[in-house]
């Protein structure tokens, strides 16, 4: 394909019509479809969050939301955000788009499996709607037995089906990424030449593949328990309800790392590219991702410190939980060291990157409070826990996803967004987030339990502040949505390399051609920015004549 034609023909214009999207095997289009679907779910989950926060403005009963509706609203918020938004957001949406290009491959190893993964996601989302039509569910996103196996709400089985199917969607993505990274690296792309986002996606994919089946079988057993009353989770019949919690968290704790690891990968790339400085401690960051993946399977018991688990197990799980802080801190220090004496561009993307470091540090450190056995007895099931995991899941994982969306937005759409509005949006989200959730740390340490509809009047001031913060955050997201949509139609045309990145996706045009690379890409150090020069004519960066090792794809 001649270069001139490549500039015209990109993946967005390669084939037209609905069917060319619905039946596409192109990882970029699947990534974009995933992104749209995830963002719509994010909107829905966010509306439920705002409903919950608005109810909590008042300590007593409110006329417009009953207790049952409240229980359903926070359950839906949790289930949608976890299973439909955060878990697929970075790997399946951004990862799908970026991974093969970063690697220098034409596609993921199994394109049809990739498309199947997206359709399974749609079926899973459909099951969530079915659950609502069947009467809803109020179990919380954790489905603890024996409540979930006896509650009268008829939406439980549909939602279990949905999460089961979403699990396979996640497994398919994970399988694809593991095999792609192992087998589709072109010559010259060694393991230690991969951008750190790929290391993070690889570690994530391992967790997806190894943890998700356990969730699938657990939910299957719960469905069997609910329909046939077999008694495996029922203490009256010789079963064990805590066993369900063990099984559930054996998946769902690693799932937290499915959310955070790719986020850390994005941040590693954002920090390096936007401070125009070689990443500090590449191997440490890479191996800490794998270390976190391994630790993730050994800490699930810290969710059951108060469930009657044996004292010895509590101590062991507490100790391993603390060890997760080591690889996490390694990453944070390396990011800070990368920033040190860097030439930092304080653009929207970088602001999200810096926000991540700030919020993740708070989220991570408060995790140590909860991992400590005696403080956990006090803080268990309070707003402190809610604030902690929102700092990690939303303040870190979702903020990184939004940051990554901005980072690759020019690459995905071929358009530049408005920087001024971008910074305003980021600032509102950051401030709103902290107002919402810092307050909840105080609420929790004062003893406000999570998930309660009614509360003591003395907590009202905290709830007012928290709800106010959530409105500020919502405003920030609305502004972000508006300028991103605006840029699709009226944004400036994006150059191939607007930020000065060095990984392979910045070597192909924006948006990339159907086959990713019109010419064979040169694989070099993804963080060596020394030979990039700002070109005012295109508004992007261009490589000064490369003297790095020239390699060719395919070898013929």
């Amino acid at each position, binding site marked *: 394909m001649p270069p001139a034609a490549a500039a015209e023909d990109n993946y967005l214009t390669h084939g037209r019509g609905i069917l060319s999207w619905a039946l596409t095997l192109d990882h970029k289009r699947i990534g974009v479809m995933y992104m749209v679907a995830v963002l719509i779910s994010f909107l829905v989950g966010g509306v439920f969050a705002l409903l919950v926060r608005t109810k909590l403005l008042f300590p007593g009963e409110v006329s417009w939301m009953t207790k049952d509706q409240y229980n359903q609203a926070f359950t839906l918020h949790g289930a949608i955000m976890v299973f439909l938004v955060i878990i697929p957001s970075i790997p399946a949406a951004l990862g799908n788009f970026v991974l093969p290009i970063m690697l220098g491959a034409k596609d993921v190893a*199994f394109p049809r499996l990739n498309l199947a993964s997206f359709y399974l996601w749609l079926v899973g989302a459909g099951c969530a709607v079915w659950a609502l039509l069947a009467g809803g569910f109020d179990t919380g996103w954790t489905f603890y037995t024996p409540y979930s196996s006896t509650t009268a709400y008829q939406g439980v089985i549909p939602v279990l089906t949905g999460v089961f199917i979403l699990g396979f969607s996640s497994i398919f993505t994970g399988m694809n990424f593991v095999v792609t990274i192992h087998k589709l690296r072109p010559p010259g792309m060694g393991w230690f030449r991969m951008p750190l986002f790929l290391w993070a996606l690889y570690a994530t994919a391992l967790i997806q593949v190894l943890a998700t089946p356990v969730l699938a*079988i657990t939910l299957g057993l719960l469905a069997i328990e609910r329909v046939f009353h077999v008694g495996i989770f029922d203490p009256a019949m010789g079963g064990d309800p805590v066993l369900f919690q063990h099984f559930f968290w054996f998946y769902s704790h690693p799932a937290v790392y499915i959310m955070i690891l790719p986020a850390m990968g994005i941040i590693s790339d954002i920090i390096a590219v936007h401070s125009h400085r070689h990443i500090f401690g590449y191997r440490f960051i890479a191996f800490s991702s794998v270390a976190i993946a391994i630790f993730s399977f050994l800490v699930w018991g810290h969710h059951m410190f108060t469930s009657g688990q044996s004292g010895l197990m509590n101590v062991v799980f507490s100790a391993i939980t603390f060890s997760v802080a080591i690889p996490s801190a390694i990453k944070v220090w390396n990011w800070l060291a990368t920033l040190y004496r860097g030439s930092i561009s304080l653009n929207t993307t970088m602001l999200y990157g810096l926000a991540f470091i700030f919020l993740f540090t708070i989220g991570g450190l408060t995790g140590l409070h909860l991992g400590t056995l005696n403080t956990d007895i006090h803080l268990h099931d309070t707003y402190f826990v809610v604030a902690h995991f929102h700092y990690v899941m939303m303040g870190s994982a979702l903020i990184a996803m939004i940051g990554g969306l901005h980072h690759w937005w020019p690459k995905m759409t071929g358009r530049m967004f408005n920087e001024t509005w971008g910074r305003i949006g980021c600032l509102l989200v950051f401030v709103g987030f902290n107002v919402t959730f810092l307050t909840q740390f105080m609420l929790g340490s004062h003893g406000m339990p999570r998930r309660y509809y009614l509360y003591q009047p003395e907590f009202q001031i905290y709830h007012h502040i928290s709800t106010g913060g959530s409105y500020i955050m919502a405003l920030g997201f609305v502004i972000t949505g508006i300028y991103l949509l605006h840029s699709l139609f009226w944004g400036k045309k994006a150059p191939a390399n607007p930020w000065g990145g060095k990984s392979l996706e910045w070597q192909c045009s924006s948006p990339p051609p159907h086959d990713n690379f019109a010419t064979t890409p040169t694989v070099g150090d993804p963080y060596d920015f020394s030979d990039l020069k700002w070109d005012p004519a295109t508004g992007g960066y261009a490589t000064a004549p490369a003297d790095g090792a020239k390699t060719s794809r395919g070898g013929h």
Partner: protein
Amino acid sequence: MSAIPTPTHDAHGHDAHGHGEHGHGDHGKYPFLRHHFDTPAQQFDSAKLGMWVFLATEILFFGALFAMYAILRFKHPEVFEYASHYLDTIMGGINTCVLILSSLTMAMAVYFAQRSKKGPLVFCLFLTLLGAVGFLVIKYFEYTHKFHENLVWGASFYKPVDEEERVIVTTPHQAPATLAEQSTAPDLSPGAASAALVKLPAADASVVKKAALGPGGLAPASGSPEQEAEVKAEEATEKALPHLLDPKMPVNTHQFFAIYYCMTGLHGIHVVIGMGMILWLMWGAMRGRYDGNYYTPVDLGGLYWHIVDLIWIFLFPLFYLIH
């Protein structure tokens, strides 16, 4: 191992057609080579690694059930020791042999596919399919026998599910004579049993639960009206459920059957999926899709079939051979 040709080896006599736009010589030479792979070897290795990753998920899928088995057995060792005697070791043993033999024929199918021998390939796949069918037929006889004896899961272990009034409510058109027959000598097909179970409401199950502790003689004495109901229920079911008459039966024996049906049932589903897969492979083999250059689906199907076999090899001693 060196005797086995790898897919990289020369592709003799393949017409070059299609895939011209990519300009890769190999894509013209190997019509099965997909556009994002550079060589047949890369495609084969990717597929194989993908299959191994998938098998890892399968192992964890069953792994949770094995963990559950371990925990339940640790909690109720006497139940497992006792209830295991209700399983038919002969039938289970035959099934184990059938599956191992079918794994052998599957391995031979891969061997013949690698050597482009179409006839023996189809024949071996057919033998494997026969093994799968044989396994399921024997399993069917085992299951129906258990259902006859009411050796089932949960509360229904202690009480037949075709309770008279419930049947009247659900199927009013049925003749009373049939009903009487059913209540005295339950002759349940598995389908009917599960259908009736679905209709059993939770409230009912809690009543049954109390009765459930009764037959072993270990339950604490409950209130008199409940006790009477219990006695009545027992009288009604004594003839139908001989296992309840055994005074040696430990409490919570139903747990053994719950995990037994979960694990062998899930394994059975995998066998059914495997049968579909073998049929698809046979169809492809008869159309001559596989040869020494391209036998990836047969190879991967073989891997899947071996894991199904392997899981059964663990299930058999864990359930049938407890002493």
